[in-house]
């Protein structure tokens, strides 16, 4: 999609109204400080290095959780998608577990893994696992059987068919799973970091709440949102590069 400057008008106007209302005293500074104060806090915390530190901590947790959950989802989804035995053994428990709201598992996870790092990483991994699993599975299942047949008549072995037909065919679905996994991962991180942190964006926000520094709470929210936005943008770019063959399909 081409960038149109006109699309900036409403966001900028909203921020201006927010700033104006805060300056005029319509908004209580305790409830919602003006954007200028949020920006000031961002600048201050960047200079003293604490924002960078918390951000790094949060990104590390997210990356580790996404890696663990994503890899598990990919492997199990592929096993269930490719092999009938795998489907029979793996899919039923996963489908059942998927119905559990994974954020509701926090109390149980605290009992199991405590309130430390493992809790945050486990939550992110759980959030990432299901979208990756489901979309890997569906991507492989939805491949046009006729293409696999054609590849067979071209003399491709089973391994070659997986490489040339199944994997590329499942790619669009896999990218969808990745984007959903990132969204679920960030959400899980936010929830996980509300539990007893010593560092990370969530900790920064909880601490600021205790000292009534509302601008830092708002700043934390904005950073979370930017992380989600940036990761989605990166994934979309990667998707466009990898799936360039689809461009012709969309145009026609």
């Amino acid at each position, binding site marked *: 999609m081409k960038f149109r400057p006109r699309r900036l008008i409403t966001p900028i106007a909203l921020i201006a109204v927010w700033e104006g209302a805060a300056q005029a005293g319509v908004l209580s500074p305790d409830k919602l400080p003006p954007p200028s104060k949020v920006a000031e806090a961002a600048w201050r915390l960047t200079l003293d290095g604490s924002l960078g530190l918390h951000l790094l901590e949060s990104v590390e947790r997210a990356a580790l959780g996404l890696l663990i959950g994503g890899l598990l989802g990919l492997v199990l989804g592929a096993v269930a998608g490719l092999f009938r035995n795998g489907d029979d053994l793996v899919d039923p428990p996963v489908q059942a577990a998927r119905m559990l709201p994974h954020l509701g598992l926090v109390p149980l996870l605290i009992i199991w893994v405590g309130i430390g790092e493992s809790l945050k990483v486990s939550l992110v991994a759980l959030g990432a696992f299901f979208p990756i699993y489901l979309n890997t599975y569906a991507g492989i299942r939805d491949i046009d059987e006729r293409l696999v047949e*054609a590849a*067979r*008549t*071209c003399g491709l072995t089973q391994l070659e068919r997986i490489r040339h*037909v199944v994997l*590329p065919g499942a*790619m669009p679905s896999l990218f969808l799973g990745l984007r959903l996994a990132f969204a679920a991962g960030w959400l899980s991180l936010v929830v996980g970091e509300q539990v007893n942190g010593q560092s990370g964006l969530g900790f920064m926000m909880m601490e600021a709440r205790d000292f009534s520094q509302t601008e830092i709470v708002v700043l934390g929210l904005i950073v979370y949102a930017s992380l989600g936005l940036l990761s989605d943008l990166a994934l979309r770019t990667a998707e466009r590069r990898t*799936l360039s*063959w689809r461009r*012709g399909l969309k145009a026609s």
Partner: protein
Amino acid sequence: MASRPEGVVTATGVRRVFGGTTVLDGVDLRIEKGEVVALLGESGSGKSTLLRILAGLDEEATGEFTTSGSTAVVFQEHRLLPWKRVAENVALGVRGGDAPDRTATALEEVGLADRGRAWPSELSGGQSQRVAFARALVREPDLLLLDEPFGALDALTRLKMQALFGRLRARHGFAALLVTHDVEEALLLSDRLLVLDRGRIAEEIEVDLGRPRAVDVPGFNELRRRLLALLHVPADPEE
């Protein structure tokens, strides 16, 4: 050992049952080297099933059947992989260092030498089907299995593709089994016609019309009428 030289296809007593329905009930079939055999039959008569068995795509058929030499298949749909460029599709499964050269030659033969870098989604239906033929040709097949390869094309493109098939056949001398429901197409392209009815080969007709042939050669219409009768289609509107 058979006393006759080995055919490209030798099949005896081929049977295939789907659920409780017998689709093929003992089919005997022999295709000689370089011979084009058209397989006709009503819808659901088992034509495509027989072709799929010979292509090795049906594991549940019984009976004896062997194909000798290399085999390639062209389906009604082009079945190109949308995520591979045209040349990569043609070269799929081709081994050896000369694969790029052979791919280029095959594309040239179907008149698409300059489209190797295109994506399948950028091609027209006729072009896609020509790529499917190139993908078959590059394997230098002794036997080409064709499952209604022109069936999904518009009438004008179909005529051009039939002519292309005739030229390729003359140049490469492959044998072919052409499954079709188009009587004229079968008469134009084949050396021998087989009519499949109720799971068996009901009729076998030699086509002695010379080559190249057109629909107005003498004898064409008699054969056409005879075939239509075998397929239970009235040849004249009054009947």
